[in-house]
């Protein structure tokens, strides 16, 4: 039972950030609550929450170049979004579904998921593979753009009481994605999981040849997701091996460190094969 004493629901970002800037009581942002609420007053020793619901950060929109997702969009909204379903074989929509059951994804938000970024979130892997960027507004009011990859290195430092206000993906000309996983049961959260993306980049379309790129995000090997980017698929295998070799040791009762490394390389390959098959 969360032992907080204050609940706030401001309708503008400035008020929200002002509340979050306080040190007494310790105040944290609340999105869907699926991660935070069970931990309030326990693992998260906060005395107050700021509910972001009325800030209006919920839309999923695209223009020719960019997909913009509001941090308060739920995983269900992503799963049902035609834009997300169309991009890269629908990898965002697909992983939003595999990450959580319907009653959770109706409540869990994109922003909350990115911040919590469990090592086994396939939705976060998909965002990483798509090279998502985030806008973070600090409590002082300034903005900073982070690549998701950088933000995940140390989310606490990146956020520092600020708020994610938008998630952005630069849309490739064309793209295909693949997902491969191993888990105890078909719908269980994965022990190891890989999302591969093959994209043709829009920024090079004036060039003589359209340039391609391959990004593979691997979860469950090391404490944080690994990300590998190469120009051509045939370069992927050695790059993945290198990334796995550099990852810190990590395992749990579902899979040892050694198993995760070996299976990680295999699943990266399977995900890439699936992407290439499209």
């Amino acid at each position, binding site marked *: *039972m*969360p*032992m*907080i*004493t*204050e*609940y706030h*629901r401001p309708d503008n970002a400035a008020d929200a950030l002002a509340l979050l800037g306080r040190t007494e009581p310790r105040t944290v942002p*609340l999105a*869907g*609550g*699926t991660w935070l*609420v*069970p931990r*309030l*007053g326990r693992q998260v020793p906060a005395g*107050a*929450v700021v*509910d972001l*619901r009325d800030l209006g950060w919920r839309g999923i929109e695209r223009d020719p170049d960019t997909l913009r997702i509001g941090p308060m969009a739920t995983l*269900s909204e992503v799963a049902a979004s035609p834009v997300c379903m169309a991009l890269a074989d629908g990898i965002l929509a697909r992983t939003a*579904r595999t990450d*959580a*059951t*319907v*009653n*959770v994804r*109706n*409540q869990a938000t994109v922003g909350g998921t990115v911040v919590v970024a469990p090592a086994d979130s396939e939705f976060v892997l998909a965002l990483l593979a798509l090279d998502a960027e985030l806008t973070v507004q600090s409590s002082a009011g300034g903005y900073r753009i982070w690549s998701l990859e950088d933000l995940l290195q140390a989310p606490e430092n990146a956020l520092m009481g600020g708020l994610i206000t938008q998630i952005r993906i630069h849309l490739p000309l064309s793209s295909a994605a693949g997902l491969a996983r*191993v*888990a*105890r*049961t*078909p*719908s*269980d*959260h994965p*022990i190891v999981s890989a999302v591969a993306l093959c994209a043709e980049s829009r920024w090079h379309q004036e060039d003589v040849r359209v340039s391609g790129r391959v990004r593979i995000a691997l979860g469950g090997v090391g404490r944080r997701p690994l990300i590998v980017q190469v120009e051509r698929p045939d370069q992927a295998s050695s790059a993945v091996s290198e990334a796995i070799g550099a990852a810190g040791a990590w395992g*749990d*009762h*579902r*899979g*040892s460190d050694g*198993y995760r490394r070996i*299976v990680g*390389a*295999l*699943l990266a*390959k399977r995900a890439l094969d699936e992407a290439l098959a499209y």
Partner: protein
Amino acid sequence: MDVHLTINGEAWTLDVRAGELLLHALRRAGFYGVKHGCETGECGACAIILNHRLVNSCTMLAAQADGASIITIEGLAPDRPGARGWLDPIQQAFIDCGAIQCGYCTPAQILAAKALLRENSSPTEREVREALAGVICRCTGYVKPVQAVLRVAALLRGEPAPAFDETDDGTPALPFPSTGDLPEAEEPPAFTSSGAEPTPTAIRVDAPRLILAPPRPDTRVVNRPAIKVDAVKLAKGRPVFTDDLTLPGMLYGALLTSPQAHARIRTIDTAQARALPGVHAVLTYQDVPRVIYASGGQSYPNPPPYDQVSLDSKVRHVGDRVAAVAAESPEIAEEALGLIQVEYEPLPAVFDPLEAMQEGAPVIHDEPDAVGIHDAERNLVHDLHVAYGDVEQGLAEADLVVEREYRVHQVQQVHIEPHVCITWWDEDDRLVVRSSTQVPFHTRRMLAPLVQLPIRRIRVIKPRIGGGFGGKQEMVLEDLCAHLTLATGRPVRMEYTREQSFASARSRHPQILRYRVGANKDGTLTAVHLHIIADKGAYGPHGLTVQFVSGFRGLSTYRAPHLRFDCQVVYTNKPAPGAYRGYGAPQALFALESVMEETALALGFDPVEFKRRNWLREGDEITMAKAMGEGREGFQQFVRSSGLEQCVQQGAAIANWERRYDPNWRFDPARPHIRRGLGFAVAMHGSGIAGLDMGAASIKLNDDGSFNLTVGATDLGTGSDTILAQIAAEVLGVPTEDILVYSSDTDLTPFDKGAYASSTTYISGNAVFKAAQEVRQQIIQHAARHLFLDPDPQQMTLEGRQVWTHDGRSVPLDQVALHSLHQATQHQIMASASHMSYESPPPFSAQFAELEVDIQTGQVTVQRLVIAVDCGTAINPVTASGQVEGGVIQALGYTLCEEMAYDHAGRLLTTDLRSYRVFAADEVPEMPVILVQTYEPSGPYGAKAVGEIPKHGVAPAVASAIFHATGVRLRALPFTPERVWQRLQEAQIPGVSS
């Protein structure tokens, strides 16, 4: 703060605390249909519809919902004057399809269906499964809930759904759209028939197929599906569970548990906690009498050891009891726990039973007052040896001796309703204990000495139970709750968190099982020796009897002239295992079925043929029954009914077993890393504990010709109230709805030992049968004497709510009732009866598994589990098949994914339903159920048990299928990807490396 909500169409303003969960706010407002099953958003029992979408109310603050429109189960078809008991079509479909067992998950499942159908009127089965996947059901295996949603969707679209009426030829109508035309088969299909691929079915949910072997009971109510007697209230989410009650002045109990695996409490300071406003009591070992006991809910005298006290100065596992608090709110209680200062003196701990038995290992029970520990210095709780014949001689005579070791692990019951109870003083100064227990009568007797009250001053009430599976055959927190009521004088409610359900409750015993099997070249067995080392965890409940069942079951399916069982039961610093559906049998039968298959293959036999040569047949003696009993004297037993051969034949046909002999079938050219396999196992169980288990029933006739049936038997969701009502209805010639069942309350219902050991149908059913027979006689006698001229009572019958003479005259039962109560020789027509049996007739099953192994990752995906069960007469084929489906899926969890894992310090790593995986609706395999009916002469209407047998065959059948797929034999459960992968690497089979 005020929160404005529209709940079920009505405007509500709730005054909530900033941190109050929506779940608690709704329950506080009286919406008890919103259930608590965990704290982390993983079980879905708390799900509600919020602004048209299904969400969990336990991971949301009430304040977050401000302004929202909420639908709870109470809002689907609210009871109104003149319209009580009306039902939403989804509720109706759940009832009709038998989709409700304990009913604890039912409100959320129905709401999940409601939210789905609002958006999608024509869902596919896959979409239905996805919609239900967030609501875990531990009882049904999801077969019937999915069927219910598909059915109601069809009905709501205006499509005809199959009628539930009895079919023309009088065979039981099954309330499911049958996928085949097989409700009854005269001749079993040939064992290795056709060779055709199975035709894919449009709807994956199979109806239970009933295969009836003569003699078929000539019945009108029994052996037919009847709606569960508690279905309506459960479908409507009425407040029927222990916690659905708030008493004036009620306090909230909470338990402080040990962070240490083994330690003495050097000091414990409760001053700060006691000083916290709102705290009414803090109890430690210094505050409660030291009375030694055994917590397992078993018959008197409880089997040893007596090695527990309510609160102790020593802790023996992480999660062990340290202190209990009662406070005015759950939040204050939790805060108070944090203020209790405990200084521990850590002691060396031991987690492996083999190490714990060694000299010099830490002594876990060094207290002088423990009773009945075999050798406390060596942590040896029991040292058991039972022999029949001379095993060494039998092994010496064998052509071949196969020696194998198997390991089985610790798993938890995961009933969705946690352990919960409420205690209070009543107006007569008697202690009332309202508890979610499988054993109300044992609990009353066992509680009395702990709270130092005579039994007569304790009343235990068991309302509906949200699943138990053996976990509630245990006094887990009733004593602490009662101590808090004694200390405060107030009603106290206490409930486990999900984490405590794992770390501070019971589980299945892990074991190491070593078999030595002697066999001759002709395929006969000469001797079987089973040696078990069992991990008892920190305390002894059920340790003796579970291990005896392992030994008995592990040496009973197959005939052999020489048998021996040796067993050491060993303490470790882990949460104590106890009773879990199947007791010791799933452990033993995994090992037994595996070793028999290995022996067959070593001899060059087809495993099915080898097993068939040796399994028990009708007329055979179950030799170990006399030698072993269950921790006490045993009785000679014979198999009087067996449908095992039929089970194997029918199951094999449905499983397309002949593919096992086609080497090409194992490979998929499109997926070179996949291997397919088919596996097989048989199982045998019992029906109650012979010579010990007793159940009683009482029946009385009411003015309108209805009957009250009161039983001590505890329906924990299995449908036992319903089948007991069916038995009474059959004898008394009335429909089931004329029987008003009540269970159980130690003040109001006769004794029953409780719901365990597969005994309710067989033992309590026989008690009901006898009581009903007696009432029937009284009705006939009264009618013969007063209401007919010249009748022959010997030839009178009860049928269609009437008493009939042989020449066709009749009087309605209500007239008999009114006449006997008010008009002549006034008396109450009523009777009670008890039943105990020296027999425990075995149900049998044949289990088939079809699966795929990814040889590069080790992931095993089970596609299909076919099971054929001989449970004698299925009193209610729908509840019987529901038991089987739920049991099979629990067993699949045991086999593949469920596991209590610890770190090096004995801390449980699996304390929630994310780290501890149980199967969800969108990932269970196809699961056809075949009920092969036999007639058990000693059972009511020929019935045997069905509750536990489905747990036994899955693990060995899956192991058998993995062996078929890969050639690799797995001897340690569970078959998680890495374990399988490891064995595949060791075996170096081609293709395992990518």
